[in-house]
């Protein structure tokens, strides 16, 4: 039973990792976001 729980947990992690990797790539911030980039 314990083996099954661990094995299916590993499967869950693997699926979640691939979904995150290929479908939810974090977007790079183009600016500092607060409208003040400290130019002054």
């Amino acid at each position, binding site marked *: 039973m314990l*083996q099954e729980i661990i094995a299916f947990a590993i499967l869950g992690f693997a699926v979640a990792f691939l979904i995150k990797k290929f479908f939810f790539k974090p977007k790079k911030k183009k600016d500092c976001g607060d409208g003040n980039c400290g130019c002054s």
Partner: protein
Amino acid sequence: MSVQNINVALIGNPNTGKTSVFNQLTGLNQQVGNYPGITVEKKIGFCKLPHGIKANILDLPGTYSLNASSMDESVVIELLLNKNDKLYPDVAVVVTDVENLKRNLLIYTQIKDLEIPTILVINMADRMETKGITLDIPLLEEKLKTKIALISSRKGTGIEDLKNLIVSYKTIQHEPCLNTFDIDPEYFSSLQNLFPNQLLYKLWLVITQDVNFSNLDRNEIRNAFTKSHSELKRLQQKETIKRYQFINDVLKDGLKIDASMAKDIRAKLDRVLTHKVWGYVIFLGILFLIFQSIFSWSTIPMDFIDGTFASLSSWAAEELPSGILTDLLSQGIIPGIGGVIIFIPQIAFLFLFISILEESGYMSRVVFLMDKIMRRFGLSGKSVVPLISGTACAIPAIMATRNIENWKERLITILVTPFTTCSARLPVYAIIISLVIPSKRVLGILNLQGLTLMFLYVLGFATAILSAYILNKVLKLDTKTYFVVEMPNYKLPLFKNVGINVVEKTKAFIVGAGKIILAISVILWFLASYGPGKDFNEAEAIVKERTAGKQLTEIQVENEIASQKLENSYIGLMGRAIEPAISPLGYDWKIGIALISSFAAREVFVGTLATIYSVGDSDNEATIKSKMQAEVSPSTGKKIFNFATGISLLLFYAFAMQCASTLAITKKETNSWKWPAMQLVFMSGLAYFVALISYQLLK
């Protein structure tokens, strides 16, 4: 009490040894922010300085000035103009080459005028004697209003002095080198009046550079100071002239060169290495040597790794308590990891050779040599760098096209670069070549397997160039083109730099690809170990009924059951569904599964087959290669991995766009889905067609 790390930006012209300084300061404490290869984005490392101060060291792309002409140069300007960037430098370290001080100082004067504390590093001090160069450091420090570190990053001298200067960066003068008003007093006075709280030189960069600078409205400034493009260019030229006048004045007394003392073999070497005949012969000879070595030298460590993982699988199956987790480990995870680790030797050797060529200065000669040829095909000499670095990975290679100024040449280079043989193809090639190409000698010295590998690399380059030729004719984009390349001095490659490069790139492959391969191996194992319906769930009874009366050993019956289960598992059903489309190419459904799973990344191919064959085979101790070698077609009884199928697979992988990340980076760099879609359709179609023809001719 926690002390905040200071940010130190390493800036300078290309080929000044900036990355060597970075390596000297950080050692292996590097966090590779971008893909390894040519520095096309920021790279961060960590360094402990005197007095317990810690520093984040930023290695920025090589740039000639703050007037960006290519995308990688914009990275530097964006960082220097954005005080709120968490990596905004507390101190800039401008690295220069003692032999090219005049040109290298241009960017120094510009950064100084941004009022960022700036230290000047004069690198390659070990060459001063042979080149007859003497420097008056105190005078240079006084005129350039800074502190100077005279170092040799190759020999590691002067690095401690540099660290001490970084620590005391607050004592450096903020005074600019050039008074911006001098460029055009009337224009800059009115600009300053409108924005009295802004630094004038920053305002000027906002007007002239197309970079991110969000709290100032660029349009507002531009509209207030309407100048035509040509007028702005004229002012930029005036600025550059004024800066060089300043630099000439500084160097007049600070730098002396005694030409009679200079001993130089560079010109002699260049005559041979860039010769219109011998240059190409030598380049081809070097390529031969590299590919022969990759195959010959890697065999022993690869066999060792393969055997070790096979034993580990066997050990896990026998020694761990039986159950689903043990099966997952012995048949899914261990063979999956083995399918990645096994290729470390070949990848490390490939990067070792490429790093040596880059470090020695030879690569720039190759760029120069190839420019004439490349131009005929619509590419630039600079396209050679992406095409060669594409042998590591197409992603940094596509990013490296940013230094190609001409858009059409850049676009064509982006589109054709995925044809070059990346390191992810190497595992696929290596295993299939070892299965279908005999390891025999040709002409007494050349290994046939090595020659086949070289042929595939050449095929990749040739297809890239041919495709570029077609695209050059098809794409209707007219842009002016020019070619400028810097020829660095020849150097003996530094062991430390080469070592770091090899470790960094091999690690990137193993960590980046390894995680994906491992995750896919786990999923594949589940799909191969479970299935719907009677044919899967009652496999044992079906096989026993089918084999009743036949003289089969216990192991043969076990293999029959494993095979029946695999064929009716979820993955087996998926594989058989696509079999009609791939059987004309010589592939069975198991190879079909590997083709599908390797769409995300090519290197998954071998790991997939390792998992599938582990599930479908009761012998845990056999290696991946021996399992593939033993695989026979149930219908014909012939080996699956025969010569015709092997060649068909090699050609399929030579051309197919089996890499989701490359498509993503093409989209990012071209800002359009049109180009990656074209890449996908064209490359996949070509791969299918060529594999089909080759199998039908050879079977």
